[in-house]
C-alpha cells in the first residue's frame, strides 16, 4: 500500500520538475504501455487465458474517440475530449462480454488463436468500412490545442490515472473472491467448476474490464497521435504483443510485474532504437536475450527473483 502511494506520488510530481519534452514524451509512452500491460494482466495473467486480440479493443477505443471528434473543426477546450473516456470504456466492456462468453468456451491455446482472429476481423473492418472509418485513407480529427510548453502533461496525467485504475483493479481482484475464482481458473478450471466456483462469470468479467481499460488507453493514444489514425496503426498486433511480452517479462499475475515490464521494455526500445539506430544485428541480439530470459527466468523477473531469494 505504501509502496503504491510512493509510486503514484513520485509519478505525479515528475512533470512539475521541468523535465525536458523528450523525457516526458517517453514517459507518456511508458505509462501508456504500463496501463495496457496491467489491463492485459487482468485476463492473461490472472485467468491464464492468453488473449492476443487486445489490440482490436485498443483500435475500437481509438476509432470511437476519432469518430466522436471527427465532425468538429477545432477543439476549444483540450481537456473536454477526455470526458468521453468513461463512455468509451464502458461501451467497449459491454462489447467484450458476449465475445468473452463465446471465446472462453475454448481451451487456452485455441483462445489465443480465436482472439488473434478477432483482431484481424476488426482490422479488416477498419480498412473496408470506408463510410465509417475512412478506410486506408485514415480518419482525421482536430489536433489537441494544448500549449507547446506543457503539451504532454494532460496525456501524462490521464494515462497515469488509467494505470492507477488498472492497478487498483488488479490489487482488488487479487484480494477478492473473484480473484480466488480466477486463480482457480488458472490452476485447474474443471476442478474449480466442480467445486461450484462461478468460473464463467469471473473470467468473462475480467475480460470485459480488461478490454474496457484497453479501449480507454487506445482513445488517449489516438488523441496523442495528433490528428489522424490509420487502420494498420490503430489495430496493430504489435500492441498486443507488447502487452504480452511486458507481462511475461515482469511476471504474470502479479501487481507490479506488468509495470516493471513496461518500464524496462518501452524505455529500452524507444531510447535505444533512437540512440543506436538500425543494425540488422539487433534483431539477432534481441532474440538471443529474449530466449535467455525465457530459459532462465521462465516465470518473469519478479516471481523468479522472489523465488531465488526465498
Amino acid at each position, binding site marked *: 500500500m505504501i509502496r503504491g502511494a510512493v509510486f503514484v506520488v513520485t509519478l505525479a510530481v515528475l512533470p512539475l520538475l521541468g523535465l525536458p519534452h523528450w523525457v516526458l514524451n517517453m514517459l507518456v509512452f511508458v505509462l501508456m504501455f504500463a496501463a495496457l500491460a496491467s489491463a492485459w494482466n487482468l485476463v492473461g495473467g490472472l485467468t491464464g487465458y492468453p488473449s492476443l486480440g487486445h489490440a482490436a479493443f485498443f483500435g475500437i477505443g481509438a476509432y470511437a474517440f476519432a469518430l466522436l471528434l471527427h465532425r468538429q473543426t477545432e477543439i476549444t477546450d483540450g481537456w473536454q475530449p477526455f470526458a468521453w473516456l468513461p463512455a468509451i470504456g464502458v461501451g467497449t466492456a459491454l462489447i467484450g462480454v458476449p465475445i468473452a462468453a463465446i471465446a472462453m468456451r475454448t481451451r487456452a491455446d485455441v483462445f489465443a488463436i480465436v482472439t488473434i482472429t478477432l483482431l484481424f476481423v476488426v482490422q479488416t473492418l477498419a480498412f473496408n468500412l470506408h463510410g465509417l472509418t475512412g478506410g486506408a485513407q485514415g480518419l482525421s480529427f482536430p489536433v489537441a490545442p494544448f500549449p507547446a510548453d506543457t503539451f504532454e502533461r494532460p496525456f501524462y496525467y490521464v494515462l497515469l490515472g488509467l494505470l492507477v485504475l488498472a492497478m487498483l483493479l488488479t490489487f482488488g481482484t487479487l484480494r477478492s473472491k473473484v480473484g480466488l475464482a480466477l486463480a482457480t481458473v488458472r490452476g485447474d478450471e474443471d476442478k474449480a467448476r466442480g467445486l461450484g466456483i462461478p468460473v464463467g462469470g469471473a473470467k468473462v468479467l475480467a475480460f470485459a474490464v480488461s478490454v474496457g481499460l484497453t479501449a480507454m488507453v487506445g482513445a488517449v493514444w489516438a488523441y496523442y497521435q495528433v490528428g489522424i489514425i490509420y487502420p494498420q496503426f490503430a489495430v*496493430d498486433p504489435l500492441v498486443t504483443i507488447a502487452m504480452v511480452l511486458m507481462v511475461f517479462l515482469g511476471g504474470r499475475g502479479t501487481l507490479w510485474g506488468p509495470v516493471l515490464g513496461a518500464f524496462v521494455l518501452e524505455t529500452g526500445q524507444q531510447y*535505444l532504437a533512437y540512440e543506436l*539506430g538500425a543494425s540488422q544485428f*539487433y534483431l539477432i541480439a534481441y532474440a538471443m536475450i529474449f530466449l535467455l530470459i525465457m530459459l532462465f527466468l521462465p516465470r518473469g523477473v519478479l516471481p523468479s527473483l522472489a523465488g531465488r531469494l526465498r
Partner: protein
Amino acid sequence: MSTNNRFWRAGLATGAALALAACSSGAAKTTKAAEAPLVIGASVSLTGDFADSGKAVKAGYELWADTVNAKGGVLGRTVQMKIVDDTSSPNQVVTNYQNLINKDKVDLVFGPFSSLLTVPSSQVAKRYGYAFLEPAGGGPAVFAQKLPNLFFVQPAPVVKQGDVFADWVLSLPAAQRPATAAYTELDDPFATPVAEDIRARFEAAGIRTVYKQVYPAETQDFSTIMTKVAAAKPDVLVGGTQSEDAYGQVKSLVQLKFSPKFMFLSNGANSPVEFPDKVGAANTAGIMSSGDWFPASKAHGSDEFAAAYVKKYGGTTDTIDNTSAEAYAAGQLVEEVAAKTGKIDNATVIATLHQGTWPTVLGDLSWDAVGQPSGSFALIQWQNGKLVPVYPAGVAQAQPVSPKPAWGG
C-alpha cells in the same frame, strides 16, 4: 506493405534495441570545425514495412551532406546528418522527432518516409517551430493539416501524380485515344487517389470505365483481378500501385497474355532497378509511370548529383531511384535559403521558402500556404530497358511509344 505483416512484430517494438546496448560502439564523433556544425536530424524507416524506400531517402540525405561539405558546407558550417530509425512505427517516429529537437537540439529536421508517418512527425516539428522539409509524404492528409512550416519536396502532391498521364492521353488525336479503361487500385493513401484522379478526368472526357477494383495491401495473387481485367479488354489500364503489387500485376498480365494498348502504374514501375528485375526487362517496354528526376536531366545541380551518387553508391545513373533525388533536393533547398538570406534557422527557412521558386534537381519548386507544391510530374516510359521522360515536351527526351508493345518487347 502488408498489414498482417505487423503481426508478432513486438520483438522490434518492445525491446529490440535493449540488446544493442551490449554491442553499441558509442556515438558519432563530432569533427572540430571552425564553426559549430549544422546538424540536421531525420527519422527514416530502416527496418519494417517501409525499409527499402527509407534507405533510399537516407542515401539522398547523406549524399547531399557529402556534396555540400566538399564545397565548404553551408555558410561555412559543416553539415552533419543525424539519421535515426523509426522501425516504420508511428510511436517511434514521434519519439524520434521529440528527441532530435529537444534532446539533441538539432538545427533543422528533414522528413521521414510515407505520409502515414509524416503527419504525426510534422505536428511535432510545428509544435517547436521547426521547418519541415519532407521529400516523401504527399498524401491528402498531410496538406489537410494546413501547417505553415511544411514543404513537400516533390513537384506536385501525390493526388496530382497521374495528371501528366491524363494530360498526355487527352492530348492525343481522337482516333488514337483509348475508348475504354480499367482501374486497379491499391487501398492506400498514396495509390488510390492517383488512379481516382485519372479516372475522373478520363470519364469526363468520355473514356468508358469497363472495370475497377480496389485491392487490400496484403494481396499477393493478382491472377483473379487480372483475369477480369483481361476479360474486360480495356484499351488502357491504370494501376494505382505502390511496389510489389505493380510487379504482381505485370507478371499476371504476362501470364494471361493480355497486353493493353496503354498502361500506367503510379509507383513501382518507376523503380529503375527493381521493376525490370521483378517482371523481366523485356516486359517493361512501353509501360508508363511518373517521375521527377531522370539521368541527363537539365535541372539545377542534376549532373553533380548523378555523378556524386554513382561515385558514392556505385551502379549507373540509370539505377538512381527518384526517392534519393527527392531527399537530395531537400538539402539543396537549405543551401539555397542560406545563400539567399545569409542565415540558416527555422524561421528564415519557413519565411523564405514560401516566396519565389526554387531550383532543385527535381526542377523549379514552389509551394502554397500549406506546403503543396504547385508544379507537375513528368510522364516517363520504359523504352529499350530504360526509363525516359516522354511528356510534356519541355522535359521530354524521347517520343512516347504508343500503343504499348506486346509482352516480351
